[in-house]
């Protein structure tokens, strides 16, 4: 069965490698399993470049959390090390704060953080790390990217069968990208439960993750909640905040 899935994935990847498909994202009526198959399954995100755009600078925290959630599963399954390259000059969104990593069950020895000066350095490091096949995942924050750059990374990720994530903080526009999955992350109001609700305290992180481009899959928008207690990324429970269909956005 797995072989078959892999085979289908290969065909789809090959078939849709040309051109970019922009369409109004279909909002999936998802169940709990569906986002997991996209996010938590390392097999699917291996060999692909994921681009995470963060239109609002203050949402960097949410995007960092989203990436850490993806990493958390990968690192726990593979017991490996991830490389995170930060570029100092983009926007000053602070640096990764080690104590927070514990929430995602990421050990300090599992993350190597590089603070680099330019996009060029970040891209070089990402590509070199992918080609060395040593890290479990490679994450980079860049200010500017283009088709060439993303294609290089996508190819490097594909050839070495490793996942790569590219964060674009403060990026609002669009451009052609070869990334096979493009996400747009926004923060949503949290949904405190129990005592926290009564005290009016913030609840678990809530994000709106919009997969606005997905090669070999269907785009969609999900509301996700990171559950600290279970170390799990789930769909935000619709019963608590039933505002009809999940938030729908248009791709420009």
């Amino acid at each position, binding site marked *: 069965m797995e072989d078959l899935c892999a085979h289908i994935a290969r065909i789809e990847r090959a078939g849709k490698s040309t051109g970019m498909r922009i369409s109004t994202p279909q909002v999936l009526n998802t169940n709990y399993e569906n986002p997991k198959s996209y996010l938590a399954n390392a097999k699917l995100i291996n060999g692909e470049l994921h681009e995470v755009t963060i239109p609002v600078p203050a949402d*960097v925290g949410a995007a960092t*959390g989203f990436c850490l959630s993806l990493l958390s599963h990968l690192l726990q399954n593979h017991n490996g090390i991830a490389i995170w390259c930060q570029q100092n000059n983009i926007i000053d969104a602070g640096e990764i704060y080690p104590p927070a*990593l514990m929430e995602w069950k990421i050990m300090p020895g599992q993350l190597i953080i590089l603070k680099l000066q330019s996009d060029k350095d970040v891209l070089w490091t990402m590509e070199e790390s992918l080609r060395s096949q040593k890290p479990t995942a490679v994450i980079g924050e860049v200010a500017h990217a283009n088709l060439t750059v993303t294609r290089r990374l996508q190819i490097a990720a594909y050839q070495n069968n490793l996942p790569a994530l590219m964060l674009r903080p403060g990026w609002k526009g669009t451009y052609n990208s070869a990334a096979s999955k493009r996400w747009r992350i926004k923060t949503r109001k949290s949904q405190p439960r129990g005592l926290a609700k009564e005290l009016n*305290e913030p609840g678990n992180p809530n994000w709106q993750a919009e997969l606005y481009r997905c090669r070999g899959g269907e785009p969609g928008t999900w509301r996700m909640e990171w559950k600290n207690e279970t170390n799990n990324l789930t769909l935000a429970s619709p019963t608590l905040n039933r505002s009809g269909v999940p938030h729908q956005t248009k791709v420009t």
Partner: protein
Amino acid sequence: MLFATNLEAEKIGIMPGMSLADARDILPNLNVKSANPNADRMVLKKIRSLCERYSPWTSIDYLKNKKETEKNEFLPATRDSNGAGIWIDVTGCTHLFGGEEKMLADMVERIKRLGFSAHAAIAETKGAAWALSHYGKMNTEGWIRAKPGGLSNLLNPLPISALCLTPSTTRKLHILGLRTIGNLLSLPRASLTARYGEIIVRQLDSTLGKVSEPISSTRYEQPLFARISFTEPIGNLKDIKAALEKLLITLCHRMVEKLVGARRLIFTLYRIDGTVGKSLVNTAYPTRNVVDLARLFNHRLDDIDPGFGIEEITLFIEKSDNLDSFQIETNEFNSIQDFTSLINRLINRFGSERVLQPQFLASHLPERTGVLCPFTKENSPNATPKINITRPVRLLSPPEEIETITMITAIDITPPAVFRWRKVLHQIIRTEGPERIASEWWRQEHPITRDYFRVENRKGQRFWIFRKTDDKTVTPRWYIHGLFS
């Protein structure tokens, strides 16, 4: 005062240590230039690095200069009172150059080619080598070699100053008519000790090798050092790389035997014009993989200038660490061992201060609890503390002050309902706190007390803001310290 003189001047009696007036008296049109000891020292350092081709164990002879500054006496006028020297411990190295004589001749020749005059002496003790090189009778090529056992014959006719005594002792001995080391040796030791203290006898014994100069008891380890000299000077980058690889293979074999890995490597090129090029590579974790190490140098070699050609290259592993043998095929693929080559490359490209890893410190203050520190073996992550309270994923350093819109008094402990951060207004709808965090009591100089709040705005963005409570002002100041996911 004259600091140094050339040979011609010494022939007519102008010696270092003379006052300029005296010298002008002898030769009115004396050509004088002001001394520049710093520049001299720089040249000495360069010559020292040139001498590393003979042995990795070289140092500049500062001994004499130090003694002179301690005793602020008139300098004895000898022809070498400021002659600079270089020590080279050539134990076990001479055969590489075809014996001691050939090595000495090579040394003198090389330094002469640079435009300096030099004397070289080799002897079985440090003191004797010093005495011979400064006062010994050189052969025509400018060097002297003490044959094993023939040391006392060579030393006997040398003046007492060769013993490296203080100028006052030397002068006293001169007054007594003791001019040579031979004179001293013929005297009974007991009376010498009684009159002048132990120092003379000790110097005599150590110079003659009767008393061994104290050497620390650590076993001498053969340095990880390799060299190749070329019959024809090379200038092609490809050739240099190939030669370097050869050296690496030799050293890596030895490192396997010793179970160590390289931490710092120094690659030195000796050009035919006497200049030296160096390239230094540091590694975060000990490595002894030829391919990885060669790749570390790749980037560096591109900007090496071969000049007129390179006649010799050496590779010295200055720092090494234990590295046990390990199995190649294990289930733990992504162990740190596997990672070293990539990390080392990143560090050598960007510098060690850019490749970081999280580390926890025992402190309450948020900026000290978790830090990012350079990725090295010494800094490998320690035990992780248990943190039950949610912490932000991004920390701003330093904290940024936020503009509070609503009026708050000092008594108010709740955070502002609206604040402005980086020109954007944030309306707070949910808050959690306060969590009071204070610096440790033993840090008394700048005590810090802060009340932290976790707040959420209308859009759901969560911030970590705090109020400075040590502020005695009426309106407390608020800061943002981090972003939550």
